[in-house]
């Protein structure tokens, strides 16, 4: 039996939507950009090379825990036996964080799964169970990926500090190049995205029902809530910045481009 907007009790209207605006622009943009990122990230993650150019380590490979090139493993190589690319060991965490993120859920449910493609536009699927069954019920463990994302953000902060170190052939001490700026911008955006997370908002104070008894957590919740309003923006910006930081390292490591040094 036909259900949905063509169901027997609904106003009989043939069109799946009567919207006259360009409602398809947003899901199409999401699809194209995210798909391009997934293709790029997959290639880079499996490549297993051109991920380190002193002092810059690609964020896709950080922390480099496998059999990594000399100088890139700041936290040892506990998985030196790992036969595949070292990126695969760590990318699962930021990937899981973004896949279960409340903003990305909106984006991919609209852009990829068309469920719905846009508001008041009928979806093509006959049945729908949302996030009540496997695998989508796993979106409920977003907070665990958030814990991991905090650790990754700390590691990337360490990398950004190391980006002030000497490049090949430079004297020891503090230096700076265009790559340092790229890494700094990236880590700031990663932190903003991580701290504006809805699970973070819940953990720092949202779960409480008596803010008045927890003034410090209330202040933290208030700050996170303000950032949370821009969570989608940070999701996009940090997606670009992390890809850009990786691309920058690729260009340096492959000798395509040399890092302009400021001092």
């Amino acid at each position: 039996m036909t259900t949905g907007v063509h169901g027997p009790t609904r106003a009989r209207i043939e069109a799946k939507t009567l919207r006259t605006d360009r409602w398809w622009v947003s899901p199409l943009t999401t699809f194209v950009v995210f798909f391009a990122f997934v293709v790029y990230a997959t290639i880079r993650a499996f490549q297993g090379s051109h991920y380190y150019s002193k002092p810059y380590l690609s964020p896709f490979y950080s922390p480099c825990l496998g059999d990594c090139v000399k100088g890139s493993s700041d936290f040892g190589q506990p998985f030196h036996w790992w036969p595949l690319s070292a990126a695969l060991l760590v990318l699962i965490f930021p990937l899981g964080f973004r896949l279960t993120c409340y903003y990305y859920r909106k984006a991919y449910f609209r852009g990829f799964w068309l469920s719905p493609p846009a508001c008041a536009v009928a979806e093509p699927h006959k049945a729908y169970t949302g996030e009540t069954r496997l695998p989508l019920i796993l979106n409920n463990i977003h907070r665990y990926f958030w814990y991991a994302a905090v650790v990754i953000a700390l590691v990337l902060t360490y990398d950004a500090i190391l980006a002030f170190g000497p490049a090949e052939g430079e004297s020891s001490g503090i230096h700076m190049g265009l790559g340092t700026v790229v890494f700094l911008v990236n880590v700031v955006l990663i932190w903003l995205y991580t701290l504006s997370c809805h699970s973070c908002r819940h953990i720092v104070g949202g779960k409480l029902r008596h803010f008045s008894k927890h003034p410090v957590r209330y202040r933290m919740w208030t700050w996170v809530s303000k950032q949370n309003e821009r969570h989608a923006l940070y999701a996009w910006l940090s997606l670009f910045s992390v890809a850009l930081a990786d691309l920058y390292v690729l260009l340096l490591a492959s000798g395509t481009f040399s890092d302009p040094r400021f001092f």
Partner: protein
Amino acid sequence: MAYTLKMRLWRGDRSGGDLQDFDVEVEAGEVVLDAIHRVQATQAGDLAVRWNCKAGKCGSCSAEVNGRPRLMCMTRLSDYDPSETITVTPMRTFPVIRDLVTDVSYNYEKAKELPYAELPPRDADGKRRMMQEDVDRGQEFRKCIECFLCQNTCHVVRDHDGNKKNFAGPRFFLRYAELDMHPLDTVDRRRVTREQAGLGYCNITKCCTEVCPEGIHITDNAIIPMKERVADRTYDPLVWLGNKIGIRDKDRDSRAEL
């Protein structure tokens, strides 16, 4: 400045109907509901339309204007090009009664399922005390005018009639969240929010927030916080372990689960 507006209005009932064209004189500053009333007064006296306050506060005149769920009284004609045809249909999620009027009783059924607040005894002076910061969140949800545009646009029931049985919808997630955040209420509604109200059906596509005429952040401030609270109770092994070994979240201590 007066001009002739081209309108297409859905006319019919459950047995059938179609979009009919009307040319109607309108004035600058008018809203869609003004134009509908003029059609009713001059060309189609039997046009059924539900309305009341004409001020965006009663939530009666919900419809779909050019396919977008809107309050007709809050949709300005000046937002459209004068040469554009404006199409108005009833809300497409609810059973149609006639013309622009739908049967929204699904929402009242869901309201009945919602466990009401159970407050503790009053203080010795006969009063109940709550701090403002403890009720701020709930007061945002209290702005709801029950226009049911969020219920209408939610694809969970709009596109799947069968889900109506198991899904309360965004308007009622506001209410579940308001009560769960209530500083005095003694009931823990997290289990019923998941099992009875069907919170897990929501996939956070935020259409409810997009169409809310009161600008309530339904998804960010009610649905997602409730999903996190449900995750605390049902999906988080650390919280479960903490409860087992006595590290309890004291902020919920006075609550009894339904």
